């Protein structure tokens, strides 16, 4: 048994154990910690499958932003709701859930393990056409050139999710500032750490976007890191969440999708259809779209964590 196989099996067992802990533990904070640990370990698993792009996004979104989102939810629940006094589901419900989950897991395992030996894959044709797009990273080419429509629709869905979160605010707070922030402690370790980490994080996020054209990276991972840095600013009290009806904020939020749609419509003019790129100019257009998207994604994810408006903004 090669040591690589032992490493992979050990990592898989550890991930399963952490997942079991996360589901089974009774306190909510412990479950969120387990979830973040699970996300970071999954990032390791993606790396051992030689997928650095997915590992980056998993670490940034699963470990960072979603963890902060869940922590905010826990904190809000703690102050507002009594522990729910529900009754535990009966044996029939739990037995049915067990059978269904086991069936789905067995089905997935069967599909993966019973694949024919050279497994059917689209990777070779994807790499063949890289030269035409001018990019060096096949994942970015898939996201921004071959399946650009899917990426555009995903970003629209993100914006819709943000609008849905905002709509949870009571009427009198609509347009106000999300109630997410803490009093800054001057000279505390949080302020120091924010001042050190945020510049590094912003540079790392933009660097990941830039390098994503030819090496693992890309706009979504970079945007998620920017969101984490913004949330850090809110948590430390060094910056205040902007009001949701601010013009600049809304401009940044829609800039990504707008640039994407404009580039798509321009495809009718300079190439063969919606979201088609002219030969030789694909890479600059893709980079321009991603540049607008990285700030939109960062702002959207940070505001999703900040939550609905909770304070009135008197003119």
């Amino acid at each position, binding site marked *: 048994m090669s040591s690589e196989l032992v490493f992979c099996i050990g990592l898989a067992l*550890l991930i399963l154990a952490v997942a079991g802990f996360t589901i089974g533990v009774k306190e909510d904070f412990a479950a969120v910690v387990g979830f*973040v640990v699970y996300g970071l370990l999954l990032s390791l698993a993606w790396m051992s499958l030689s997928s650095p792009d997915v590992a980056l996004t998993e*670490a940034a979104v699963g470990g960072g932003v979603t963890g902060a989102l869940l922590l905010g939810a826990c904190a809000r629940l703690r102050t507002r709701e009594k522990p729910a006094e529900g009754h535990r589901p009966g044996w029939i419900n739990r037995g049915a859930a067990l059978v269904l989950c086991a069936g789905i897991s067995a089905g997935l395992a069967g599909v993966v393990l019973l694949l024919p030996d050279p497994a059917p894959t689209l990777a070779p044709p994807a790499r063949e056409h890289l030269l035409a797009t001018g990019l060096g990273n096949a994942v970015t080419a898939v996201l921004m050139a071959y399946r650009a429509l899917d990426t555009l629709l995903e970003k629209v869905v993100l914006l819709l999710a943000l609008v849905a979160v905002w709509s949870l605010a009571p009427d009198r707070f609509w347009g106000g500032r999300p109630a997410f*922030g803490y009093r800054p402690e001057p000279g505390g370790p949080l302020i120091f750490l924010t001042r050190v980490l945020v510049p590094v994080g912003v540079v790392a996020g933009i660097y990941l976007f830039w390098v994503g054209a030819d090496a693992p990276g890309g706009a979504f991972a970079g945007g998620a890191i920017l969101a984490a840095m913004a949330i850090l600013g809110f948590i430390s009290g060094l910056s205040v969440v902007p009001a949701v009806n601010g013009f600049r904020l809304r401009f940044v939020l829609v800039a990504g999708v707008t640039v994407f749609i404009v580039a798509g419509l321009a495809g009718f003019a300079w190439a063969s259809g919606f979201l088609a790129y002219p030969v030789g100019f694909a890479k600059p257009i893709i980079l321009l779209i991603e540049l607008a998207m990285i700030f939109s994604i960062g702002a959207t994810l940070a505001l999703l964590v900040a939550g609905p408006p909770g304070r009135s903004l008197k003119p």
Partner: protein
Amino acid sequence: MPEFLLAAAGFVLAMVALGLVRILRGPEDGDRMMAAQLLGTGGIAALLLAAGGGLPAAADVALTLALLAAFASMAFAKSGVSPEAYDEPKPGEKE
């Protein structure tokens, strides 16, 4: 050499697993907050050893992991306080 590095990666991963057992079991919230730190150091070490200098993107993933483990530590440490505890208006803004 690659075998040695991979064995070291497995060892570090085993140490992380043992540490996680102790940390996640810890009866208080303070114990569990250390999980982000444990993964921030042990996870990066295991990652770099398993890549063994072969995958050039491993350094970028290590950077991302370091940033996010620090971010997670801070989010955990500030998690007990309800977010609405900040009620001081900015200077010049009337509530």
